[in-house]
């Protein structure tokens, strides 16, 4: 019989990480009034998920599933399609960068770069939607640059937080436990 790419156990884990991304978006609040600050939480979750299920496509699965959940919950202010595409592209780009860099998110450089590019991809979707919808140009001249920097910095911080979490999980023996489950 043909073996599925992801096992049922891995799919359950990915679904849990997807739900966590949406819950983090809704429940976790920071007092920082800067664009993309929530990326600290969800990029950490995506990076951890991509390493807990260490297969190309894991981050994409988290992005697509959380995108579906978020769009049906009405998150985002550009509508369902924008919400779905921004979450999905976040996962796909994170996967792509992980693949280019060898896939080991337990390396801090890999985790930070994958999260930074993934989070920036989310902003790119929002920016393209703005262009397509003929949104007015920014009121503040440097508004776009400020937003881009916000997404890059918080994406990188999310990647770093994800790397720290992976390190803690490794120390706690979580990966040895997972190996037994597989």
């Amino acid at each position, binding site marked *: 019989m043909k073996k599925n790419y992801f096992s049922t156990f891995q799919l359950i884990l990915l679904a849990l990480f997807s739900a966590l991304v949406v819950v983090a978006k809704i429940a976790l609040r920071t*007092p920082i009034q800067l664009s993309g600050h929530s990326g600290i939480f969800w990029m950490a979750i995506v990076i951890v998920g991509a390493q807990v299920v260490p297969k190309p496509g894991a981050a994409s699965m988290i992005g697509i599933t959380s995108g579906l959940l978020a769009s049906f919950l009405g998150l985002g202010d550009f509508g369902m399609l924008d919400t779905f595409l921004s979450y999905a592209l976040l996962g796909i780009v994170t996967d792509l960068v992980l693949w280019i860099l060898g896939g080991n998110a337990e390396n801090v450089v890999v985790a930070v770069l994958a999260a930074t590019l993934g989070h920036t991809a989310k902003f*790119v979707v929002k920016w393209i939607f703005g*262009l397509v919808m*003929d949104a*007015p*140009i920014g*009121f503040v001249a440097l*508004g*776009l640059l400020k937003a881009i920097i916000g997404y*890059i910095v918080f994406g990188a911080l999310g990647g770093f937080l994800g790397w720290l979490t992976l390190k803690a999980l490794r120390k706690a023996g979580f990966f040895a436990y997972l190996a037994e489950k597989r």
Partner: protein
Amino acid sequence: MDKKRILYVLLGLVAIVSVMLGVDFWQRQQAAALAPADMPPGSIPIFMDGKFVASFIPDDLAQLADASFVDAEEGKTQEGWLLRDVILLYIKESKLKDDTQITVLSSSREKAKSLAWVEVNAEDNMVMFDLSGRGTLKLVSKIPGFDLRDLWIQDVDKIEVVR
């Protein structure tokens, strides 16, 4: 780890950012070429009884007091400048009556909201502009019935005052 691959990823990031900033710069140049001198790119024109009064420009922000509130729906802080203060920068208060209609429009979203001056003027209502992530203005408020994100006016590009 292969340093070349890291470099490719970093170059990819730089390329993405450059394209976005390049397109934004080009849009600003285009808008500046088409708009009158008193309407710099990104500014919000204010009309009174159909006549152009002035453009709300970023330079004017320094004259305005900051305002903020935490929205009840998502618990996010909305931070910016009161619509009342913006209007009073260009229109004398004596020209505004309680029932004067203030309409804030967004052509790209095809949305508009009309409020009476008395509602806009009440500080407790917090009728104000919040700066969105992309740098455009979003009209938000605490007025019951106009206190939800779906109802707020994103990407504002015009203000109309009708007496």
